[in-house]
């Protein structure tokens, strides 16, 4: 059978003999998949992706790209993959077209610069200096330099960090179009929505190891409840319980909400309480009764689908965006 586009076993990377950035990480990514490495800053995502890209040597472990190792087939593998690094500042005094032509010239069978410009909606900017582009345009150009070699695998390290919503959606479309043509994608992100919408499979990475892996739906299933009920209450003296209660009181309250019907887990989110719930129609009436009988006032109530963020918080007790 044909080897997987990306496969690694038991990767470890130790910096300066001290910092363990990656601590035994194994992955297998199938052709045509969009695979996401999701995790907070410093989880080891960038180290992992750079080892897979052949830019960093692992301290131990093995990487195979289409079954070949970097040590033996680097030149050929470079023809097959396209990379967008987390931060590359391309030469500001070159135009967009010149930059794409430059990168095209490194590949033995590149795509036409004009086609790439068209596909990434940069045609209008083709004669503009790179220094004059907006953040979204620069990021599209970075992806353009990755696509111009006509790669089979696209590696994207935090492709949409710091972009406005419209630019993010444009990039997602580009990734999907690449995937539609049979390409394989590996991306890192710390955006939940990006992982949920874009990725076929996900690995949640924390402290250099994979703590959960599966499709986004799989991972959310593991929460127990697919719904989240979020609410905020205050007592009649208009003292906000959440803000005024000391730690003991707070835990008492959380334990109390846990006893409501169909609730799988409870956590506090700023001044609100979040319940992971299997069947909201059972939980909500009981919740309203409880609030009324305790003499509290409901300040806010909402229900939503559970997200990867909830998965991450459940798994680690921390939020993804926390440092």
């Amino acid at each position, binding site marked *: 059978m044909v080897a997987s586009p990306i496969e690694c076993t038991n990767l470890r990377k130790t910096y300066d003999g001290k910092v363990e950035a990656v601590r035994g990480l194994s992955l297998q990514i199938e052709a045509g998949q969009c695979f996401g490495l999701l995790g907070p800053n410093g989880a080891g995502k960038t180290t992992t992706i750079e080892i897979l890209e052949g830019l960093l040597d692992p301290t131990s472990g093995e990487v195979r790209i289409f079954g070949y190792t970097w040590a033996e087939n680097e030149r050929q593998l470079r023809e097959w993959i396209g990379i967008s690094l987390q931060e590359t500042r391309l030469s500001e005094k070159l135009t967009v077209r010149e930059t794409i032509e430059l990168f095209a*010239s490194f590949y033995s069978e590149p795509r036409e610069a004009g086609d790439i410009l068209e596909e990434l909606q940069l045609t209008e900017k083709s004669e503009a*200096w790179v220094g004059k582009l907006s953040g979204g345009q620069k990021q599209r150009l970075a992806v353009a330099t990755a696509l111009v070699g006509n790669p089979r695998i696209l590696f994207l390290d935090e492709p949409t960090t710091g972009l406005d919503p419209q630019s993010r959606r444009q990039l997602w479309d580009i990734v999907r179009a690449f995937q539609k*043509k049979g390409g394989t994608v590996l991306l890192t992100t710390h955006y939940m929505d990006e992982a949920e919408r874009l990725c076929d499979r996900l690995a949640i990475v924390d402290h250099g190891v994979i703590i959960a892996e599966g499709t986004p739906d799989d991972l959310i299933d593991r929460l127990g409840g697919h719904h989240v009920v979020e609410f905020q209450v205050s007592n009649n003296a208009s003292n906000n319980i959440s803000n005024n209660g000391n730690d003991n009181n707070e835990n008492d309250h959380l334990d109390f909400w846990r006893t409501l019907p169909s609730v799988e887990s409870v956590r506090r989110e700023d001044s609100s309480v979040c319940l992971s719930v299997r069947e909201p129609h059972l939980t909500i009436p009981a919740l309203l009764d409880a609030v009324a009988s305790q003499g509290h006032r409901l300040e806010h109530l909402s229900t939503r689908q559970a997200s990867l963020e909830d998965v991450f918080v459940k798994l680690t007790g921390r939020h993804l965006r926390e440092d």
Partner: protein
Amino acid sequence: MATTETNPPRLHADENPQPRPIPARRSGRWSGYRHLLWARILELKREPEVVFWVFIFPLLLAAGLGIAFRNKPADITSVVVIDGAGAEKTLAMLQNSTNKSASDRSSSDKSASDKSPAHSAVRATILDREAALKAFHFGKYDLAIEANPDGSYTYYYDPARPESILSRAEIDAQLQSAAGRLDVLATSSQSSSEPGSRYIDFLIPGLLGMNLMNSGMWGVGFALVEMRQRKLLKRFVATPMRRSDFLLALTSSRLILMVIEVGLLLSFGVLVFHMPVQGSILSVVLLGSLGAVAFGGVGLLTACRAQKIESVSGLINLVMMPMWIFSGVFFSYQRFPAITHPFIKALPLTALNDALRATILEGATLASQSGRLLVLAIWGGVSFILALRWFRWT
């Protein structure tokens, strides 16, 4: 695709793990090199600071120093004759003598006004006693002369002013010879301020050498670290780009700039300061190329590990500082004690400057400069080899 295949140890070019969806064009072997070189030149061209520091600044430096240290035109000594009985006669004696020396001068020196004549020209005026002494005391005249009724002369001079002392000697000689004194010794003088031995002629080859050093160190060393800091080097090595093509393109761009730098500065010297170029232009360009490549190598070595432009700036200045001082850019290193000369001559900039001066000013052949060329080649070669061994792309 083969379906029963296990992972082969080596890869064959015609094996495609996946079909390619889009028909592709083909790039030639040197396509990457050509694009890298062109991109580098475009970037330099679009950077006004580079144009200024590499091309304009050395010209300004040459112009400024050339003017400041130009050989001054012949000193004219201004004297005042105190009005009295013999004043007119004194004046006539001086003017007669001065015309003679001025005509001597113009016969021996056709072009330059900045040559010292055998005799200083004398500008003499007659004023009444009070006005004459007052003007002399204010420094308007170098000397005041009074013809005494008995036929003798009195000089009023200021021993604290060298030009006053010179003027007294000059005027005395002129008056004595005008009065009929015969010189008993036959003497002749040789002027040594021909074009080719002036300060500006010494300076311009030195500036050429310094400029090649500066732009090699900054153009290669600084540029590399800047690209490393921007993660552009890392981005490049993530492509199939040949690393040797990249370094070759960087070096080639230096050579192209070198031809322009050398051409501009030499033309400037020739056109503005009438600097003679005795050696062949080809030798100068070959020397410049060797210099540019050698300093490119030193620049590469300086930059092979540095991650930040701040640290490489310090390193570059540290490397260049001894050569600014010792390598004879602005003044001859002969001023340093003889014991230091072997070390000074082992510096690449000394070798380059000496070879450039020998070629440009004395018309020396490259073969006669082989020792200096060897010094440059060793510096460049050893630097390149070490730099490539230690070079950090990411």
